[in-house]
């Protein structure tokens, strides 16, 4: 089934869809420009704007459901950005509205949670301003009806991410992490820009409707090039290999930021880009293959990194990488995987945000301690946090009937049908997920107390726990709701197309059972090592593999060796060349002239007889020349 035509639309909630972007943008502007006068109500205004945005999104969604499935792609013209070249408009269709609901709903919850989490931070107002800025930029990214506006949103979320990672910029590590994220993202953005340029050179337009509708007319080579360039952009934004290195460091930001930007929404923008540009990838098998390989490689790499981290947020970040790898894998498979990719994206947005917020709640209780080796036995002290976290944990490892069970198994089955090797690798990844998530839960909530003497853990206030509860409800039901009966696939079909034959859900297929078995083995092994046994307070040395995983698979070392060192050498070479070459030339010239002059001036002895001698000899030479020339 091909995607439906876009129908121009005005009026109603959809006609006012721009309000979704405008409201948080106004919030950010007021909070940033208003300065300290807005300190008192800044957080409330931020929450209000996010919630208002969610209301608009929900109303638009309701209105969209009112149309027949073939008429659910609604375009809204806003203005002409470059006359005759780029019109800026919004595209409200099942795909974008799904993202809008996720972003505004989870975003609102995290806004609310942040009221409590950031209560003691003197810069809370600025934090909410950045959060609002992020929501606005992210909504622009998903609502844009062309690649230019998408790119504006793309850069906007990059900026917000930079500002929020470095929110505690007094910490050098945070400032460095922010710069790292920004620079690595620039690499991806460069690829995206080149992709957009190539699109324009090929199709002479940047609107989704024109580009994607005519994608089949372009040559497969061009489509491959565009697809790979877009993939580079997606890798940068979604922390896929080989541009994954920034995500783990991005955990320096406040935990709500990690939950919203680096787990639930922004890092999934790459998946959105791939799914949105589906027709391009479907025309380029090589690009699709590369996408799936990147997805599988990242899901394994993220999982392996997650097994070795003692920092609770970094373990979760590895898991995020891994889960986005699943989504990218599904997105690379084609229309049959899109629904699973987006569904997993949405459920992951819930359960991962749930876990990140839970981790934030734990840190809040443990004096911002992030080392899991200093946790332990927290389930009694923080029951609400524990139970919500447990739900998120069960969802992510694919415990039957919870969200992850439906969406991740769907992805594995689709991948298995597409390519058995990729599928089995994804199964192995699921097993590792079972291990490291269990390890995280056991180390944090079970076992013996390994707290610092100063730690006095306590349950977090309601403003933080209520979002956790809401998110965990989503983590329980969403997977079942979206996948059962192919509900989500049908819903998305007008936007991204759908396979002719809807895949049936097999609860007891071979891959499904294998996944369950591997997850159970992983969880049991984790229980043996971290639940039942004593957890040492200091991380043991571990084998070579452990070190390998702890050092992020040597990603940073590789980047340093490949780019930083040569860059430094190049810089030193340039400095050397400038100092010795350019300056040397100039200084040498000056010194040479100075030295020559210093010697030449000795000719000016002041003795008139010397001067007369030179004149006389010159005259003699002239006389000789005269003779020679005269006789020629």
């Amino acid at each position, binding site marked *: 089934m091909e995607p439906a035509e876009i129908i121009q639309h005005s009026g109603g909630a959809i006609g006012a869809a721009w309000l979704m972007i405008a409201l948080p943008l106004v919030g950010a502007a007021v909070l940033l420009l208003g300065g300290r006068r807005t300190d008192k109500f800044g957080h409330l205004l931020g929450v209000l704007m996010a919630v208002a945005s969610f209301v608009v999104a929900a109303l638009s969604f309701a209105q969209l459901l009112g149309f027949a499935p073939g008429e659910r792609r609604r375009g809204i013209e806003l203005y002409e950005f470059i006359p005759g070249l780029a019109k800026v408009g919004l595209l409200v269709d099942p795909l974008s509205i799904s993202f809008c609901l996720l972003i505004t709903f989870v975003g609102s919850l995290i806004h609310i949670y942040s009221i409590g989490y950031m209560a003691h931070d003197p810069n809370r107002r600025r934090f909410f301003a950045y959060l609002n800025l992020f929501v606005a930029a992210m909504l622009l990214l998903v609502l844009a009806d062309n690649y230019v506006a998408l790119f504006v949103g793309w850069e906007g979320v990059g900026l917000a991410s930079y500002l929020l990672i470095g929110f505690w910029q007094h910490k050098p590590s945070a400032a460095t992490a922010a710069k790292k994220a920004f620079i690595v993202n620039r690499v991806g953005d460069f690829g995206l820009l080149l992709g957009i340029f190539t699109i324009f050179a090929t199709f002479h337009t940047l609107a989704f409707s024109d580009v994607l509708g005519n994608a089949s007319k372009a040559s497969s080579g061009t489509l491959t090039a565009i697809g790979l360039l877009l993939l580079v952009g997606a890798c940068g934004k979604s922390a896929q290999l080989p541009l994954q290195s920034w995500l783990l460091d991005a955990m320096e930001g406040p935990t709500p930021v990690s939950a919203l930007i680096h787990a639930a929404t922004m890092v999934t923008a790459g998946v959105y880009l791939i799914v949105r540009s589906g027709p391009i990838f479907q025309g380029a098998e090589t690009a699709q293959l590369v996408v799936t390989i990147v997805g599988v490689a990242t899901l394994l790499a993220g999982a392996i990194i997650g097994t070795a981290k003692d920092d609770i947020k970094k373990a979760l970040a590895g898991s995020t990488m891994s889960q986005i790898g699943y989504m990218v894998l599904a997105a690379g498979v084609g229309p049959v995987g899109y629904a699973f990719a987006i569904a997993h994206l949405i459920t992951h947005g819930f359960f991962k945000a749930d876990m990140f917020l839970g981790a934030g709640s734990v840190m809040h209780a443990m004096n911002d301690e992030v080392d899991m080796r200093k946790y332990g036995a927290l389930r009694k002290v923080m029951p609400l946090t524990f139970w919500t976290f447990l739900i998120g944990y069960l969802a992510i490892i694919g415990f039957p009937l919870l969200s992850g069970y439906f969406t991740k198994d769907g992805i594995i089955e689709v991948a298995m049908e597409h390519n058995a090797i990729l599928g089995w690798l994804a199964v192995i990844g699921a097993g590792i997920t079972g291990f490291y998530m269990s390890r995280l839960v056991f180390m944090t909530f079970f076992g013996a107390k390994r707290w610092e003497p100063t730690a006095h853990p306590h349950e977090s206030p309601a403003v933080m726990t209520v979002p956790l509860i809401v998110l965990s409800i989503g983590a329980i039901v969403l997977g079942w709701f979206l996948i059962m009966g192919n509900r989500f696939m049908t819903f998305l079909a007008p936007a991204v197309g759908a396979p002719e034959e809807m895949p049936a859900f097999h609860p007891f297929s071979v891959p499904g059972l294998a996944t369950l078995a591997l997850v159970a083995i992983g969880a049991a092994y984790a229980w043996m090592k971290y639940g039942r046994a004593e957890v040492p307070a200091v991380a043991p040395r571990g084998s070579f593999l452990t070190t390998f995983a702890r050092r992020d698979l040597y990603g940073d070392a590789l980047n340093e060796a490949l780019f930083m060192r040569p860059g430094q050498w190049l810089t030193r070479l340039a400095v050397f060349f400038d100092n010795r070459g350019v300056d040397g030339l100039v200084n040498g010239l000056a010194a040479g002239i100075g030295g020559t002059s210093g010697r030449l001036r*000795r000719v000016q002895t002041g003795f*008139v007889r010397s001067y*007369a001698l030179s004149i006389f000899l010159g005259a003699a030479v002239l006389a000789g020349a005269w003779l020679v020339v005269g006789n020629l």
Partner: protein
Amino acid sequence: MTTHYLVLSALLFAIGGVGVLVRRNAIVVFMCVELMLNACNLAFVTFARQNGNLDGQLIAFFVMIVAAAEVVIGLAIIVTIFRTRRSASVDDASLLKY
């Protein structure tokens, strides 16, 4: 015969030039300059006869006039320098240098 006069003129001129270069007494230097001028005059006079034209003699006459004026001024300068520096050596007046 004319060639002999010219060679004599060249010889005197060169001797005068060497004198200018090797002598340090300003007055002697001046005399050598006069010797060079006289050598030139001899060449002029010789060429006048050679070419059957009085212009050579005429220019020799003007050279004499100019030489007289030059001697007057030059000697006045020497006297002035001597008065202040107590020396007639051209090497002593070598302040204008590097």
